[in-house]
């Protein structure tokens, strides 16, 4: 009847490029992260001193180019095994022009679900255009929070994300989790203004590091009851990466003393990386970590087969990924190693990255999630 | 009846120049008959073709019945041949799709002088009246040649030219055919020239000439 398969795939690629990897003359389409480096001209800009307002800020900020709802969780099953969950909703504005809404909306959505199980790692990605209710984050008629893509759904019974229920699936696995957290939100950086480079690239960034999670993961229809802790990051910006930044290394950790540590560093092509982070005590006090307060140094690299995007060429390349880190915050007495026993956690998505559960050893024990982009 | 005046004719054959006629003068009177003899390749047929208007002389004059046929245009020549000349070939050259009668009548009809009484007479004389409705393929060689003779005489031409008329026939048939040809031509008052290499055939005719190296000599 219509478009053939080749054409579809071709169009698909084009659409992905134009949506998520839009190109300029400088950078070829090969680097999808170029999107994050593009000047956000015409879009709303991130500036210090913004007042955050909840629950309003849990919802999309469409005048900004890019935004995400980012949940990671380290869970333990009633089978005694460790499970990891990662669910993300990305929003992108395709143009700075006013949003016409409906089928003419300039908003597009991308979602990732990844389940790290003892016997394997599975991920899925989905796309949708905005405006047609196929995906979005919005308040329902009952004044409750909803974030969804198709049948992946985070539904709360309040205007805030918590307490909520998250349902999502990959090809053969699925999960349903109840998420509970206090309404104390951690504003990252300077009151939610999170600087990404010396050149002014920045984002608005807040987190909920302490989410109590319970629920079920079905692997091939086999249910496992799980409990554990999760971490939600909310971030929006119009140009989060500087031109000379290849990507970032990010880690969110729940330490055994009940505190939570987040560190990220943006890797510069040359010279010094831009590092920043925060430490949240068990009672909720936040210590901002700036350049000089914290270091995050790779200890070794792991050679990983990288599955290609197409899936029909299973191992198309080999990459050396630093999966063994040493993080030190001298002023807080933190000197820890961050390692993983789940090295095969590469998401071969339109934006490929490594995201997996890690274990903490050294001055503190703990668990968390490591995210490595731009490799 | 025909007259050649200072005729020259040569042609090339596989690199060799064959001289057919060299300042050749020749005359054959009305009602006379002659045999044209000569070696193979001497040009007997070419000489006959020139008299028939089927070929052209290089130079000199060719007159038939007082007409300069070497000066006639193609259409006039065709018409002249139609009305004044009868031709007999070694290979008979009958039209396979026509009956013996139609073949015999062909030239007379083309000339518009067909006379069925005379045609009947000729077929009678030639002994082929019972074969009139047959096709050439249903006739023997001798019978075919008799039809050809009928064709050559039926329009009562002034000149009859025969090229080896018995060349494809056995001896007995040959004699019968040549006898018929000579007597029929003589009855019709036509001049008869027969190209042949056979002395016995030549014996039926009043004159004999031998062609060699472009010149013509009376033969014994």
């Amino acid at each position, binding site marked *: 009847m*219509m*478009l053939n398969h080749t054409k579809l795939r071709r*169009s698909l690629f084009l659409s992905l490029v134009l949506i998520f990897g839009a190109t300029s003359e400088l950078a070829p389409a090969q680097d999808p992260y170029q999107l994050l480096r593009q000047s956000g001209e015409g879009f709303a800009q991130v500036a210090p001193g913004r007042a955050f307002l909840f629950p309003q800020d849990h919802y999309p900020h469409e005048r900004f180019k890019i935004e995400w709802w980012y949940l990671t969780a380290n869970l333990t099953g009633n089978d005694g095994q460790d499970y990891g969950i990662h669910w993300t909703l990305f929003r992108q504005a395709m143009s700075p022009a006013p949003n016409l809404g409906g089928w003419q909306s300039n908003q597009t959505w991308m979602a990732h679900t990844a389940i790290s199980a003892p016997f394997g790692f599975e991920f899925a990605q989905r796309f949708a255009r905005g405006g047609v209710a196929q995906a979005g984050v919005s308040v329902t008629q009952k004044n409750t929070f909803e974030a969804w893509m198709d049948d992946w759904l985070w539904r709360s019974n309040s205007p805030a994300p918590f307490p909520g229920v998250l349902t999502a699936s990959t090809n053969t696995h699925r999960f349903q989790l109840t998420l509970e957290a206090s309404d104390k939100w951690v504003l990252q950086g300077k009151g939610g203004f999170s600087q990404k480079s010396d050149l002014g690239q920045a984002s608005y960034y807040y987190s909920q590091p302490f989410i109590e999670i319970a629920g079920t993961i079905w692997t091939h229809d086999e249910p496992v009851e799980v409990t554990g802790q999760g971490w939600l990051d909310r971030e929006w910006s119009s140009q989060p990466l500087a031109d000379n930044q290849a990507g970032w290394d990010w880690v969110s950790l729940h330490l055994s003393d009940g505190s939570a540590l987040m560190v990220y560093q943006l890797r510069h092509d040359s010279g010094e990386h831009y590092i920043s982070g925060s430490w949240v005590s068990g009672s909720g006090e936040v210590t901002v970590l700036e350049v000089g307060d914290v270091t995050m140094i790779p200890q070794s690299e792991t050679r990983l087969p990288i599955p290609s995007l197409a899936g029909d060429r299973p191992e198309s390349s080999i990459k050396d990924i630093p999966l063994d880190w040493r993080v030190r915050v001298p002023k807080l007495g933190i000197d820890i190693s961050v390692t993983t026993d789940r090295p095969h956690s590469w998401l071969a998505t339109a934006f490929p990255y490594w995201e997996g559960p890690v274990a903490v050893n050294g001055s503190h024990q703990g668990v968390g999630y490591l995210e490595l982009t731009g490799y | 009846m025909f007259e050649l005046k200072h005729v020259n004719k040569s042609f090339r054959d596989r690199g060799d120049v064959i001289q057919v006629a060299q300042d050749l003068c020749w005359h054959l009177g009305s009602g006379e008959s002659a045999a044209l003899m000569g070696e193979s390749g001497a040009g007997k047929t070419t000489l006959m*073709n020139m008299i028939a208007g*089927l070929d052209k002389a290089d130079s000199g004059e060719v007159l038939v019945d007082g007409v300069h046929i070497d000066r006639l245009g193609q259409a006039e020549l065709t018409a002249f041949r139609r009305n004044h*000349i009868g031709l007999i070939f070694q290979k008979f*050259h009958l039209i396979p799709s026509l009956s013996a009668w139609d073949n015999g009548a062909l030239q007379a009809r083309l000339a518009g002088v067909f006379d069925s009484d005379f045609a009947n007479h000729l077929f009678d004389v030639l002994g082929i009246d019972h074969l009139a409705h047959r096709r050439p393929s249903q006739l023997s060689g001798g019978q075919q040649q008799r039809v050809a003779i009928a064709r050559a005489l039926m329009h009562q031409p002034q000149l009859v030219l025969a090229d080896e008329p018995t060349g494809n026939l056995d001896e007995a048939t040959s004699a019968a055919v040549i006898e018929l040809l000579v007597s029929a031509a003589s009855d019709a008052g036509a001049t008869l020239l027969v190209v042949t290499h056979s002395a016995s055939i030549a014996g039926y005719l009043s004159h004999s000439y031998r062609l060699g190296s472009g010149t013509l000599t009376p033969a014994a």
Partner: protein
Amino acid sequence: MMRATLVTLATTLAFYRQNPLQALFVVVGLVLGCGLYTSVAQINASAKASYAEADQILGVSAPWRITDRVNTNVAITDYIRLRRAGFTRVYPVIEKRLASAEGALISIIATDLLALTSFGSGVDSGRDSGVDTGSFGGDGWSRLTQPPYEAWVPPQTAERLAVTEGQQIRLREGKLLPPAIIRSQPQQRDQIFIDMGAALSLFETDRVSYLATSPLTETEQQKFVEQFGDRLALSNQSQTLDLSQLTGSLHTNLTALGLLSFVVGTFIVFNAVNFSLHARQQNLRVLQDLGAVRAAIFTAIAIESLFWAVAGALLGTLLAQPLSAALMPAVAATMQNIYGASVSSLPVFNTGLFWEALLLALAGLLLALVLPLVRASATHSDEPDSRNEALFSRHNVVLAGVGVALLALAYACYPIASSVVQGFALLSLVLFAGVALLPMVVVLVSALGRSLTRQHWLARWAFADVSLQFPHLRLAMMALLLTLIASIGVTALVGSFRLALTDWLETRLSADFYVTAGVIDAEVLAGQVWIQAAHRRLVAERSFAGRTLTVVGIDADAPDFGPDDIVDGDPEAFARWLLGGVGVDRVFANEQLRYLGGLEVGDTLELETDLGIRPFEVVGFFHDYGNVNFSLHLPSGRLEQLYANAKPQGWGIWVEQSQRAAAELGLSQLGLEPTQWVSQRDVLALSLTIFDRTFAITRALNALTLLVAAVAIFSSLLAVYQLRRPEYALWRSLGMSWFGFFMVSGFPIVLMTVAAMALALPLGIVLSWLLIHKINVISFGWTMPVIVAPEPIAFLFVVVAAVVLTAFILASLRQQVEVNKALKNLAGE
């Protein structure tokens, strides 16, 4: 042996150096034969590749369709609901076939590209696809999805529609498509792609043509039925619309035409090879005398044949490229118009086709080589004299007997042929019967002529000469006959189609004006003085036996449907239909339901209605030209009771002839935009234009085969003239004028052409009858009256006469010079 072969080859090939024209004929025959065959095969293969690709998306990835139970279209909100219910491998499609303001056919496809990303195991990065993304810039998605949008037009479509980058195509009803972007999407075929958002806005709708989905598991189907089963229906697309099945007969048709052209091409090769062998007999004999062994001669001829075959296949394949490129758009148009199948208008080359062409060329050559050898061995002398009486020969009588037998066989098989292939087998029986009968017809005609003209010696001669020429021209005349039969058959078919279409349109579109649905209501119309009558039809859609079935509500007093439109109903059918029945509704069905659905008058079918499942009794049938769907006619009052949601079509308005101008003015005064109404004349003109374009392909192929036949005649004439030159010289030596000469030598070809025409006429009509009453019924389920219009056939005959005359004149061009040369050789050995 090797040396002998080489010497033999050099000698035999030297023949072609001396007779370049003969070489040309061998090549021309092979090239035309192979070329036509290959181009048709290529067209077939390309179209089939298009179906395969269509299957790839529908057959593999999304072979299932979701449609609305009540409406023709699916609400876009239902699509979102499905998505949110977890049916993530569903995507929405709008497909439209529309006419442009210039009357060109436009196919539009719209979907949401992002929705397709859930297909396949992953997402193709396209990293090695080499796609030029530069043309997109940073906001390509915005340009595609936001006003003024983009229309992605494939280059060949752009060329067909004469659209340049940035131009907006205007549709017939006045709307403008988004600015064109010329994009070479592999196999986008002839469709213009626009974004779903653009399509919804352009067509001012919130519904899509259908939803496509990949196959659902049992569990998913259950879930679907539970959640959506009340409103939406799931069907397996590959069962309801099998493109290759639907279009099968056209392809068989095209293949047959391709083979026909190859057969005709083989005739040329046959003639040329036959002649060249004959002319070289002397050479070959001398070679044999000189000690060349048979094997060497055989090898030399084999090498020569191989050379010709390769050259012919190669050049033929090359010729096929521009040829099929020129013909393909017409085929694509046919597919769209008749079958609703979208096919690329670009042919795809396939190396397999070259090998096919080579095999065919070799087969043709082999035939041409073997048959003369067989014949030569059968009759020792191959001189024309020995054959001149052969016209009434046993051979011809046997052949004629075979011809009659073939016709009888066709007659006997007619009732049992029930598949397209069997239908075409019937057609070929008729064609071959014609070929077998031709010699006897020529014999009879010339015998008749001879007996009628017994008193005229020249006429007798001319008729007699037929028997001398015919053996040489037999094959060429057979080729001409085949072409003529096919041409008459197809001409009558197309003519009947066209008349049926016109009739159908005039009945169906008997109203003078049509007003778009929903822009005007009954009261307003009723108040207009210029209106004679105004009616509209109501349509509900269902499905029956795997096909869409439309139930149409008809106003009983509407002038466009009445007792005269009923075929095979009883005399009271219309009245009974109006009355309706007790417990059963009476309907008229289209012929498609009869031939494809297997219904007869009196049969009952059951359909879902608003009042539950109800029986419908068929009381008669109506012709329904070109409809791919089943259709039932109900009185409109009854339809409204049964299907409350039936959609009204636009108004048909009848006016007095004198009121036309007033009506046009009146419609404008009612505030109707020019795009909201159309006059019947415009619709008729458009339909017929599209129709004519559709059948351009058959006309083109007919013209081409005629050309090939003409070349065959030309080459045969040349051959026969060369063979008969001594005889022709004799004619001249006896004093025949050129006028008489050409009269007698030209007469046989005139007679044979007339004989071929005389034979072709009845057989061509039989062919068209078979095409319409067999192939058409088998393929589509509808018939039409066979109409043999004298004008096109007369025109065809005039063209053929002109073509044959041209061949004769061309072949006679050097006749005078050559005959004069031959005069000298009459005498002597």
